[in-house]
């Protein structure tokens, strides 16, 4: 049995996914997290930050929230329930870094936490940077031509 056929059979045995329900929860939870992010950004603007200078502190605060909810084990529950609604926002990125940092601590600070901390977030950063490099070369070459 080749891989394609195995996957086809596995699909037939696997219970059907509640696609509509998953999509609804992803929408509600993802939207709610962005709403919190907007609240943080608006609060920073009121404190005198500009739209530009508020970006980094907003990211740091949302990462902090994601880290706290991960440390208490609540974020894993949220991910089970909301799927991409919890994984796609930056709080999910924080979860992807903090969860393995805790999970592999027993293997040591260097070979456990240190080595595994980017297990999930690493691919995102690697391919994000690769595509930014390619697009960056194009934009560099088009300087003056394309604002």
């Amino acid at each position, binding site marked *: 049995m080749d891989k394609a056929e195995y*996957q086809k059979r596995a*699909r037939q045995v696997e219970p059907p*996914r509640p*696609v509509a329900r*998953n*999509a*609804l929860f*992803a*929408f509600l939870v*993802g*939207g*709610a*997290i*962005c*709403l919190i*992010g*907007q*609240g*943080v950004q*608006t609060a920073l603007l009121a404190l005198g930050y500009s739209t530009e200078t508020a970006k*980094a502190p*907003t*990211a*740091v605060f949302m*990462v902090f929230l*994601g*880290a706290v909810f*991960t*440390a208490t*084990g609540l974020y894993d529950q949220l991910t089970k329930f909301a*799927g*991409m609604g919890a*994984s*796609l*926002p*930056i709080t999910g*990125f*924080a979860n992807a*870094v*903090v969860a393995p940092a*805790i999970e*592999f601590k*027993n293997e040591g600070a260097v070979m456990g*936490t240190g080595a595994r*901390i980017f297990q*999930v977030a690493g*691919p*995102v950063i690697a*391919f*994000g*940077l690769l*595509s*930014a490099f390619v*697009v*960056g*070369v*194009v*934009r*560099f070459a088009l*300087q003056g031509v394309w604002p």
Partner: protein
Amino acid sequence: MTFLLAFLIGGALCLIAQLVMDLTRLTPAHILVGAVVLGVILGGVGVYEPLAKVAGAGATIPLPGFGYSMITGLIQEIPKEGWVAIFSGAFKATGAGIKAALIFGILASFFVRARA
């Protein structure tokens, strides 16, 4: 109004990602990588910027917004840094979020017990 749009656009991006995952059976890791690459490309051609202006955190908090930050940070650095911006620019814009996650992760590993 910004709050409503942040909720709707941010929710819609998550909904699309969830639908893609359920309908194509791609792994979450592939979806997340795809989302950030898409953000870089859309940001590079100037399509993501209007969305970020309208939806605020609804566009910048989900992962495509992370890619958008990478490429806009890089493009903004080109006039100042020249070709070096191709290497340094993307990290300047997203470094705070990445470093925050690393620091909080390491700190959490000191104080939180691993679950069995």
